[in-house]
């Protein structure tokens, strides 16, 4: 029960955090120039977007839940299960960010998630 709860926190924290950061960056708009000055300006503006901090908070939640989980659960169980966050992230991109996912992209994401699971159990 405790394991399931923390695993959910890891998956939701990681994908929720990245989705929030993604939303914040879309709000800023495309970075046009890559001079150090415009990069610093871009990062400075990012720090003022609410979704960016929501994202950082969720990523921190996911990271510390993972650390906590690893104190009693096996890495070879935790990481493959956390590969589910690729699927969760794709669902979030579709339903929360309104991205359109083609069957080709879905197939790629499922293969990547399976590959990450296999890499970490071996």
């Amino acid at each position, binding site marked *: 029960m405790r394991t399931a709860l923390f695993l959910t926190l890891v998956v939701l924290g990681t994908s929720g955090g990245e989705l929030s950061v993604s939303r914040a960056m879309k709000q800023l708009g495309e970075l046009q120039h890559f001079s150090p000055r415009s990069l610093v300006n871009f990062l400075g503006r990012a720090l003022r977007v609410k979704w960016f901090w929501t994202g950082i908070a969720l990523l921190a939640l996911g990271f510390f839940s993972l650390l906590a989980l690893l104190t009693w659960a096996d890495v070879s169980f935790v990481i493959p299960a956390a590969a589910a966050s*690729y699927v969760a992230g794709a669902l979030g991109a579709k339903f929360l960010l309104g991205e359109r996912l083609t069957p080709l992209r879905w*197939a*790629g*994401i499922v*293969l*990547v998630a399976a590959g990450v699971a*296999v890499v970490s159990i*071996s």
Partner: protein
Amino acid sequence: MTRNLQWKTYGLLAPIVLFASTGNVLLGKGMKQIGEIREWSPAAFGSLFLGAFSNGWVWLGIGSLLLFLVSFMVVLSWADYSFVMPVSAASYALVPLMSRWLLSERVSSTRWAGVALICAGVALVTRTSATGGATGRATGGTSGGTGGVACGEVVS
């Protein structure tokens, strides 16, 4: 997606993959020097943190992961999350390779199979357009770029 945007996207996906895997390998190297944790008391955690933050490899790892985060943020200012997320998983394919080379760890055949699955998945995702919701293979010829580079390095 314009050609310029396509170059920008792949130009940033490369450091994303590189800094994520380098960061993890450096952190792994640093943490292994500190040694395994045998008890979970507050004192043990204290000495773990102290050890981690006085280790040069750990700091290099953190620096690398920060560069990863910045590249990740910049590319997401135009590219789809559902594109960047699976493609950046190519770093999971690079980690076994770097572990083999830099840390001299043994990499099992199961792990190489996982690497192959990731490369196949990344190759499929790069056939879709990075922006505007994956409406087909707008990236054309160079679209296999990141996947191809990652896998090419892995099998060499």
